[in-house]
């Protein structure tokens, strides 16, 4: 009896003690707390195309010469005030005057040239170079105190858009190696990085633009989406970009938005039976996208007709998504079979675990739909490392017919960042080849203005209607949770950057 009483007393005392001692650190004042899914390995602005680096440094610590408007893909001035093409191979950018780096250096043509050359230095595996400038020969020079000239060997009409990826760092930044304390011109100074725990930024008093409201920013890292959303719910954090659909349960805090990702199954059009267009069309007709939407995929996803989202230059809005029609799919399969196409041959569907939420379930559902239409599909779900072996050239000579689960992200303003790589005969990740598509990609890449947009749109039409290199799925949505104490609306660009200067307090 004594033991029982003692136990009850101890338990009650423990609970009360815990309740009184524990007071979680709630986000308060003019400090903004952002919880990200992954800690960056390095915070060099040259790696800002990686979302976990970009969300911290891009346009906060280090700015670009221009920036791309997420609403319509148009190009706006940032560190460059104007730009013009002086000949086919040359662009000139006028640099903003009166701007200082965080370490006190002046922003001028020489500093910008040094920063661009650092990013393009092959001794440094900077992601901006490897992703956007890998195949390009570029030389940059100062042609005035605040004017730079950018020359390429082949015409680059989208050079301004490319400069939207090029973050500018102080001339004192070390060469050929990533830095852990970047110095840029942005509204926030990089303050402190406690590995494994947090990164903090402080407002830059010498910023050239308007003074942001947020004084300090703290980034913390939690891999689990449920924890990130719980942190905003409890007030420990203010913004959790990229939470899972099942955690986006509070309509007052959760925002859904197109995240510039497009999901598809890539069809290897070079191998039978997938080299027959009837088979490829049948696959698209066999997928009931409406059944997938709101169940395995989020309610807000949009059936896609092309690999670029509507805000990207070159998107063709006149194309209509494939409509589910199982009978028609079966008829096409039967017609192909009658002509000797081996439609019963085993087709491997290579999936990637976690490429998007419910990726395995999506493949299982599509497997069932394709099987119902008469295909012999076998799923192989892989980790990223294994999946990458099937993504890019060189492909195995003796490979069989294959579908590859994929998701492509382009929020860089123009279709050029997608089309060659994915659909040109020699594209690194292309498994299709069509002379007209190749000619279109070449012509659009060299064209400007309306003409460029029209050529891209024709390429999209031909791919969608005449080539059918994909089982088209959805333009995807992302979810972010935002604490009601702040005023911030996530957008397509939240996928790669998070401009703290746009955040206000309610």
């Amino acid at each position, binding site marked *: 009896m004594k033991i029982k009483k003692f136990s009850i007393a101890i338990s009650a005392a423990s609970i009360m003690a815990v309740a009184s*001692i524990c*007071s*979680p650190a709630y986000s308060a004042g003019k400090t903004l707390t952002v919880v990200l899914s992954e800690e960056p390995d390095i915070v060099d602005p040259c790696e800002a*195309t990686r979302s976990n680096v970009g969300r911290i440094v891009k346009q906060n610590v280090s700015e670009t010469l221009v920036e791309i408007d997420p609403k319509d893909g148009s190009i706006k001035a940032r560190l460059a005030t104007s730009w013009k093409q002086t000949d086919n191979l040359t662009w000139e950018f006028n640099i903003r005057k009166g701007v200082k780096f965080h370490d006190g250096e002046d922003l001028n043509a020489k500093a910008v040239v040094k920063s661009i050359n650092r990013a393009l230095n092959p001794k440094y595996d900077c*992601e901006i170079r490897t992703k956007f400038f890998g195949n390009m020969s570029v030389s940059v020079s100062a042609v005035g105190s605040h004017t730079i000239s950018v020359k390429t060997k082949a015409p680059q009409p989208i050079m301004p858009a490319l400069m939207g990826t090029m973050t500018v760092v102080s001339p004192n930044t070390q060469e050929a190696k*990533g830095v852990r304390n970047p110095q840029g011109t942005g509204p926030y100074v990089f303050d402190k990085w406690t590995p*494994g725990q947090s990164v903090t930024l402080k407002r830059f008093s010498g910023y050239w633009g308007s003074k942001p409201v947020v004084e300090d920013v703290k980034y913390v890292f939690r891999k689990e989406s449920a924890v990130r959303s719980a942190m905003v719910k409890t007030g420990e954090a203010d913004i959790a970009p990229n939470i899972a659909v099942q955690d986006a349960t509070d309509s007052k805090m959760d925002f859904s938005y197109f995240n510039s990702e497009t999901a598809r199954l890539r069809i290897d059009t070079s191998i039978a039976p997938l080299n027959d267009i009837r088979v490829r069309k049948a696959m698209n007709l066999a997928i009931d996208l409406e059944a997938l939407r709101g169940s395995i995929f989020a309610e807000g996803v949009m059936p896609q007709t092309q690999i670029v989202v509507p805000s990207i230059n070159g998107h063709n809005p006149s194309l209509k998504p494939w409509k589910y029609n199982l009978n028609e799919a079966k008829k096409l399969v039967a017609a192909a079979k009658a002509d000797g196409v081996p439609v019963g041959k085993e087709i491997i569907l290579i999936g990637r675990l976690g490429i998007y939420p419910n990726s395995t379930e999506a493949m299982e559902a599509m497997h069932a739909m394709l099987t119902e239409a008469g295909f012999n599909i076998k799923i192989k779900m892989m980790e990223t*490392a294994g999946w990458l072996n099937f993504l890019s*050239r060189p492909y195995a000579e003796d490979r069989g017919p294959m579908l590859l689960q994929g998701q492509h992200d382009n929020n860089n303003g123009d279709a050029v960042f997608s089309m060659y790589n994915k659909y040109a005969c020699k594209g690194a990740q292309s498994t299709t080849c069509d002379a007209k598509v190749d000619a279109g990609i070449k012509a659009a890449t060299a064209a400007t203005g309306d003409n460029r947009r029209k050529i891209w749109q024709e390429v999209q039409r031909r791919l969608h209607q005449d080539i059918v290199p994909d089982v088209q799925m959805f333009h995807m949505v992302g979810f972010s949770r935002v604490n009601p104490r702040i005023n911030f609306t996530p957008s397509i660009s939240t996928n790669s950057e998070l401009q703290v200067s746009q955040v206000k307090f309610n």
Partner: protein
Amino acid sequence: MKKYLSKRILSSLLAVIGLFIMVFFLARLTGDPGHLYLPIDAPLEVRKEFSEKHGFNDPIYVQFGRFVGDLVNGDLGYSLRKERPAIDVVLEAIPITLSLAAVAMTIALFGAIIIGSLAAYRPNGIFDRISRVVSLTAASAPDFWVAITAILLFSVSLRWLPTSGMGDFPYWIMPVSILVIRPLGLLVQVVRGSMITALSSDFVKTARAKGVKEKSVIFKHALRNGLLPVITVAGDQAAAIANGAVIVETIFGWPGIGKLMIDSILQRDFAVVQASILITAIVILSINIIIDIAYATLDPRIRHK
């Protein structure tokens, strides 16, 4: 005892060397790190240039020679991802895991000894039955589920504890509790079993006959003899936590060695994989040696073998 210890240390060293060679070759079987390091859209030329620059396309024996040479000079390599010496990255993570493991195992061990001994005192009594059900449930509860449920209950609903993160006392409560649950459940079962055997032994009967106090019979005479299997299981559990409390580290945002190891394997950051496995192996082998010493201290038959 000295001879016994030297033999154990020598065999442990050989095991570490064998493990290290195995890790080197197994890691390279997974493929080229450039595939994961470079962006998906990186052109083929860039991929080739990357592999050449970092020596990933050299024959495996050349890479191994380079690795052994560096190792002889005390260099465990450079993290491709973090652009820092791999050993620095690992030495930042290991104290976090070890402190979690130490606190969790101390609580689990003492808790198990008290609960297990009391349960064994009256087998099939009410306390024994309750402790058996609770400890079996605890031993089989999935960490992930318990952790998320605890966050939803104690952080989101009751607002008593922070959801996650490192900091002062409140930040330790949930991660340590989750880590304690499984070893505590297992150890209670082991203590109970070995104490039931010990309490029915002749020497306990003799002690009781001599009028020794019951508390002293349980915690002095019986417990000392019943501790041997407990030490073995506790050692295994401690090694498992030291090897990486991955789920707790991942969910609560504690950047320990388990999380680091998994991340570096997934990213093919070979130098960090090697350094973290080496350090973890040393920790685990040290734990095993401590267990052996404890065993030898408690059981004279082992010392004299």
